């Protein structure tokens, strides 16, 4: 099943064609002007440094969540160091709330691949990698088929387009690990090992995959490269804001009337996006808050969104980040304590166990939140959550533990009274409500009748992970 095709406002670099049974194929992509950017690079005498110059001039910021300038990342690779260089497409989309890369992989796999080929040429790489999350089904098959089509058409392999440039691409399936979306963990996984992040320096652009200089770019970042090189820096920069040029693929979910993937120009009104493009909240409810860019970004309530635009600077000024563009809308009447409990279960499950503050802290935070939602919270528990979160901040190799702290304490900052009420009264201020419309409400009521005293079928003690 494919994702719904959504129409928003403004310029579209990706969502600009009707999705059909064949629109992802090489033939269809070429008919839309696909691989013209690669043709320009390989057949019109562009040098690798020319490509990097144009990508730098475009001002494109990485779309994986950290918004680091892609051109600057490429620019540090020393082309004449005699080492192999690797480019790896990060398609391990796993930040909760984020599913925009999946849309790109399913619908424009060749555009992603063209970006990877151009990036590999710019960095003089002989091998490129696509690290795709192991659970993806259609996205995996579409990308696998795109790679085989590209080999058959001479767009991959030896002597591409007769240019003398050769590139092999490996499509590598992850095996179920959130932390492998972190670039150094991803490279460890690509080496066939457990996905443990590692300390920098040395940076991955110095010692990355197989100890060689490596650039890891998000799917959407690479998919923008054919736009920049093919349509030109001017066309790209004409869209968005001076500091956040181009478009952002936003995936929106939660209590929103029209969930899905949208392509918006940076600088677009956040409220207009929510209330007009996405149709407001389910059942006409009022908005309580949004998780702006994946659960690792701090929540913003309805008031804080007023006048904010969808770009990195505006989101930062509002006190959060645009992150991975994975937005989750939450309606009035939702129990934020229960939601924090759900979110923290995720961080505990995904902590890789390497750094003590995170390995111990994630479980500790989960246990504290668990006893609060079971009505056994203690008055000091709220401050304890801040304490554990602070103990993680900046003390671990990767930012998983930091993110959990930001996510949970931002909810505490905004809705402390809900936690205090829960601790004091042993029950939720909002009856533990998580849904606005629950298709399975009848089954849930039956389950509760058969399991008196138990909180939820998904919050059984101990957790259940296959």
């Amino acid at each position: 099943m494919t994702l719904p095709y959504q129409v928003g406002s403004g310029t579209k670099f990706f969502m600009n064609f009707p999705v059909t049974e064949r629109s992802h194929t090489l033939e269809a992509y070429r008919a839309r002007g696909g691989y013209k950017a690669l043709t320009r690079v390989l057949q019109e005498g562009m040098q690798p440094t020319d490509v990097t110059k144009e990508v730098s001039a475009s001002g494109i910021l990485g779309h994986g969540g950290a918004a680091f300038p892609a051109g600057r990342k490429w620019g540090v690779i020393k082309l004449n160091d005699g080492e192999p260089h690797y480019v790896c497409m990060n398609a391990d989309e796993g930040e909760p709330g984020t599913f925009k890369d999946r849309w790109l992989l399913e619908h424009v796999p060749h555009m992603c691949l063209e970006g990877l080929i151009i990036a590999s040429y710019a960095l003089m790489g002989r091998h490129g990698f696509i690290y795709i999350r192991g659970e993806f089904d259609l996205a995996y098959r579409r990308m696998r088929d795109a790679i085989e089509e590209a080999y058959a058409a001479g767009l991959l392999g030896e002597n591409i387009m007769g240019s003398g440039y050769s590139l092999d691409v490996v499509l590598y399936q992850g095996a179920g690990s959130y932390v492998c979306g972190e670039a150094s963990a991803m490279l460890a996984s690509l080496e066939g090992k457990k996905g443990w992040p590692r300390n920098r320096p040395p940076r991955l652009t110095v010692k990355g995959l197989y100890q060689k200089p490596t650039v890891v770019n998000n799917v959407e970042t690479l998919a923008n490269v054919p736009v920049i090189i093919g349509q030109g820096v001017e066309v790209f920069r004409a869209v968005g804001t001076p500091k956040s040029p181009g478009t952002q693929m936003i995936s929106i979910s939660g209590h929103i009337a029209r969930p899905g993937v949208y392509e918006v120009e940076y600088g677009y009104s956040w409220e207009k996006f929510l209330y007009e493009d996405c149709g407001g909240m389910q059942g006409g409810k009022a908005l309580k808050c949004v998780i702006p860019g994946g659960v690792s970004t701090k929540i913003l309530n309805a008031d804080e969104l007023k006048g904010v635009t969808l770009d990195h600077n505006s989101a930062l000024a509002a006190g959060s980040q645009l992150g991975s563009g994975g937005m989750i809308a939450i309606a009035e009447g939702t129990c934020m304590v229960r939601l924090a409990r759900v979110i923290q279960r995720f961080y505990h499950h995904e902590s890789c166990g390497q750094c003590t503050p995170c390995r111990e802290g994630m479980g500790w935070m989960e246990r504290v939140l668990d006893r609060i939602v079971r009505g056994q919270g203690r008055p000091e528990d709220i401050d304890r959550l801040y304490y554990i979160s602070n103990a993680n901040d900046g003390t671990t190799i990767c930012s998983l533990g930091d993110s959990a702290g930001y996510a949970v304490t931002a909810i505490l900052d905004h809705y402390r009274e809900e936690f205090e009420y829960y601790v004091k009264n042993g029950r939720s201020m909002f009856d533990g409500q998580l849904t606005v419309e629950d298709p399975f409400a009848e089954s849930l009521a039956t389950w509760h009748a058969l399991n008196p005293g138990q909180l939820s079928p998904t919050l059984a003690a101990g957790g259940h992970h296959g």
Partner: protein
Amino acid sequence: MTSTMTSIQHLIPEFERWKTRYPAGFEGSLTIPCLHRIQQERGYIADSDIDELVAYLGVPRTQVDEVLGFYTMFTRTPRGRHHLQVCHNASCSLRGAEGLVAHLCLKLGIRPGETTSDGAFTLTTVECLASCGTAPMMMVNEAYHENLTPATVDALLEELAR
């Protein structure tokens, strides 16, 4: 899934083809792809598979053990014929994941983490599968099933039980 231990030798020509696209000398990278392929055939990773893979790739046995322990998709024990994985992360919880799990528990008579006595279904709860806009959802073996309702779940379970 078979009960008799078959060798993985018949998969080696396929593994050899994969190698051609990797930089030379980095066969260890194939550990995860090979394990995926073996599990796809057998349904789980048997001790003998590890022995053969270690011998074939020349990687330390600890590396394979660590990989099997680290990644949630690999299993050392057989699962039910149909592995139902329900996402219970934030977005799915906001659209009815708890009720979906309740519905499956009632229908199958098992709790998350368990397998039905006939070996047909294993139910697990999992974290985000990047299907947030089409919640609630679950994976059945390799396939995504999205925007689930009681009617679609019941129809699916009936079809799978056949």
